[in-house]
């Protein structure tokens, strides 16, 4: 059994190595450049006010940020009035700014005045294709049902999204589906798709030479950029709140598009663009935090391993006993196996979002704890199932022999049954570990760090080298885990079980 202790100690090391500090405010941003830049501006302002700040960037989707803001896992993030109306308060009458402000007050949230630009949705396509077909307005699309329309998943779901748009303009296009927004540009450029949703200040409009189709019927509402923050911030960091509010009306569409272009076309880090904006317009000097590749890869690795190891260790502590119970109580076997099976069928991104609120009761951190809990839940099935199968697979003769020796239940379990089932149990743990290494990249979706962070950032910036920074080590890690288990097999599986039987 002493070998099990070695394993236990090995499992704990990364957990000790990565203890996190608590910042005094957290800024969130969505998974597109503009949102990250606007959040970086707040981060730099906070720094200039001496407030410790953490920017949890590139979170996947409005719902996620909204939940995180309500749960207090982030304090402030940039948002658009149209998004609040159409997505958060859909069905409520919050037509003017005052009504919206009141609706937000119910949640103890405050919205700044517009920052100065209206980043409404526009429908876009390649300039040359539009010219060739003579398409200028959204209405013109009606005469071209052969065009392939693909919209961001968010746009497909929104109240003012595709379905409302199609009704408004009587668009005949069939088989219109959702697509990750960052991939849509690539597809548009390659001609795989023809029409997609864009933002008014999108840098890609310049980069990919896109034309924005006119919205004759004024279908899209205003998407004025604002900051949304928790009311308690006014008492906690009043200086920062007034600094944020001083940005109201300072960022117009041209300036925002410039900043987007700096990041997406010139490859500047968002932090440097934000610092440049503050220095230029407000005379505030802050230090830009440029990414450093080697240091970052080390950090991603530590975070990724931390997630995988922690979730796996917790899953083993829960799943092996559950498997033991399932193997010994026939009436509990089906409920237990069924339950962990159902967990497995929850889509991973939905699970991450669902976990935000419950997890916030235990931790005020966003990303890491949710990712660990999600990975923990996904690890249960292979371990529970293999523990159950391993124990049930012990031959009746051996079971009877151990019973006949007159050993108590727990000694039989510990000295005979678990060692006999060890190989099968370990196979389940290994499956869970390899799956976890892959699944953990989805942590990038909710700001958990790890290899998912560069992958998601890379997709957002359409920058392959950044994607590879996450994808290559993740693949290597999966191989390493696979290999590492050969060693664990040697540690844990009794020698007698690895021998080929003689005559």
């Amino acid at each position: 059994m002493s070998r099990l202790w070695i394993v236990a100690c090995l499992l704990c090391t990364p957990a000790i190595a990565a203890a996190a500090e608590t910042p005094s405010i957290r800024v969130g941003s969505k998974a597109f450049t503009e949102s990250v830049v606007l959040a970086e501006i707040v981060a730099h302002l906070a720094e200039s006010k001496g407030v410790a700040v953490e920017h949890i960037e590139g979170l996947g989707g409005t719902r996620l940020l909204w939940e995180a803001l309500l749960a207090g896992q982030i304090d402030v993030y940039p948002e658009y009035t149209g998004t609040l109306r159409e997505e958060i308060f859909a069905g409520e009458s919050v037509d003017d700014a005052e009504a919206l402000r009141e609706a937000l007050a119910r949640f103890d949230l405050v919205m700044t005045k517009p920052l100065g630009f209206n980043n409404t949705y526009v429908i876009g396509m390649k300039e040359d294709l539009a010219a060739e077909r003579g398409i200028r307005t959204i209405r013109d699309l009606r005469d071209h049902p052969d065009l392939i329309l693909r919209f961001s998943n968010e746009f497909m779901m929104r109240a003012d999204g595709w379905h409302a748009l199609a009704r408004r303009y009587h668009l005949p296009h069939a088989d219109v589906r959702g697509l990750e927004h960052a991939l849509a540009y690539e597809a548009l450029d390659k001609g795989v798709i023809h029409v997609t949703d864009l933002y008014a200040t999108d840098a890609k409009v310049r980069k990919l030479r896109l034309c924005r189709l006119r919205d004759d019927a004024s279908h899209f509402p205003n998407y004025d950029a604002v900051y949304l923050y928790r009311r308690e911030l006014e008492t906690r960091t009043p200086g920062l709140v007034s600094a944020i509010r001083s940005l109201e009306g300072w960022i117009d569409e041209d300036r925002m598009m410039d900043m987007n272009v700096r990041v997406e076309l010139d490859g500047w880090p968002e932090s440097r663009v934000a610092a440049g904006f503050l220095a230029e317009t407000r005379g505030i000097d802050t230090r830009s935090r440029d990414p450093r590749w080697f240091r970052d890869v080390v950090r991603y690795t530590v975070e990724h391993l931390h997630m995988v190891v922690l979730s796996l260790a917790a899953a083993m502590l829960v799943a092996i006993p559950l498997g033991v119970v399932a193997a010994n109580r026939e009436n509990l076997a089906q409920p237990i196996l069924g339950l962990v099976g159902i967990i497995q069928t929850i889509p991973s991104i939905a699970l991450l979002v669902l976990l935000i609120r419950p997890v916030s009761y235990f931790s005020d951190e966003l990303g890491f704890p949710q990712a660990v809990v999600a990975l923990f839940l996904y690890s249960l099935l292979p371990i529970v199932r293999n523990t159950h199968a391993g124990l049930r697979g012990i031959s009746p003769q051996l079971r009877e022999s151990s019973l006949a020796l007159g050993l108590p239940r727990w000694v039989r379990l510990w000295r005979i049954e678990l060692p006999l089932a060890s190989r099968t149990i370990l196979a389940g743990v290994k499956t869970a570990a390899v799956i976890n290494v892959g699944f953990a990249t989805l942590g990038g979706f909710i700001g958990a760090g790890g290899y998912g962070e560069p992958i998601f950032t890379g997709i957002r910036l359409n920058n392959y080298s950044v994607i590879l920074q996450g994808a290559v080590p993740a693949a290597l890690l999966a191989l390493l885990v696979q290999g590492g288990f050969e060693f664990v097999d040697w540690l844990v599986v009794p020698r007698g079980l690895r021998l080929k039987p003689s005559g």
Partner: protein
Amino acid sequence: MIQLHDISKRYGSACAVQNVDLDVAPGRTTVLIGPSGCGKSTLLRLMMGLIRPDAGTVRFEGQALTPANAMQLRRKMGYVIQDGGLFPHLTARDNCTLVARYLSWSRDRMEGRLRELVELTHFPSEGLNRYPAQLSGGQRQRVSLMRALMLDPDVLLMDEPLGALDPMIRRNLQEELRSVFRALGKTVVMVTHDLAEAGYFGDAIVLLRRGEIAQAGSLHELLHAPADPFVTQFVNAQRQPLVVSEGTP
């Protein structure tokens, strides 16, 4: 030593054992014999409390066997099954000393007992550090016997202990086993389907048919005073090999 009183046991709708009364005498070898499915192994398991009877009582040394005391009482019984039932993840030594270690025997006491058993069973002592997969069938059966005898039980229960061995080895082990039984003077209950083996070991033979005792007595009685036609039929079916064993004492 072991008394079964009016024992019945069903598996689903099939009746494994029906109204059996049996008294296993101390210090002697009792052999349970009969065609497959006659309930002989079930009877052995009932004696160990590995299964519970639907009706009737099992007494061990005068004490009624219950789920509460079965674990304690089993330590006074040694159990050997057909293929040995050794745990493949433990060495021969660890298989033998598993229970002794749980009972916190001293190392000296364990090693002393192992030395006695190695001598008794003619097991090569260097084999103690091998795993079951590294031992021959005969060696595995010797280890199984050592494991059963480790705590010096009052009773030895054996379910077809030599059944999986080839005839040559089986013959040698039969001789050795009988001399072990004689040397120890223990109560032995053995299950076999082989009348020759039953006659070779058994002070008393219990012939079972469909869960009931057809006849209990010596081999001589079975041969010469069969209780009913089934006994004659069973005996005749195995008559040929008996020419050899009937002559031996």
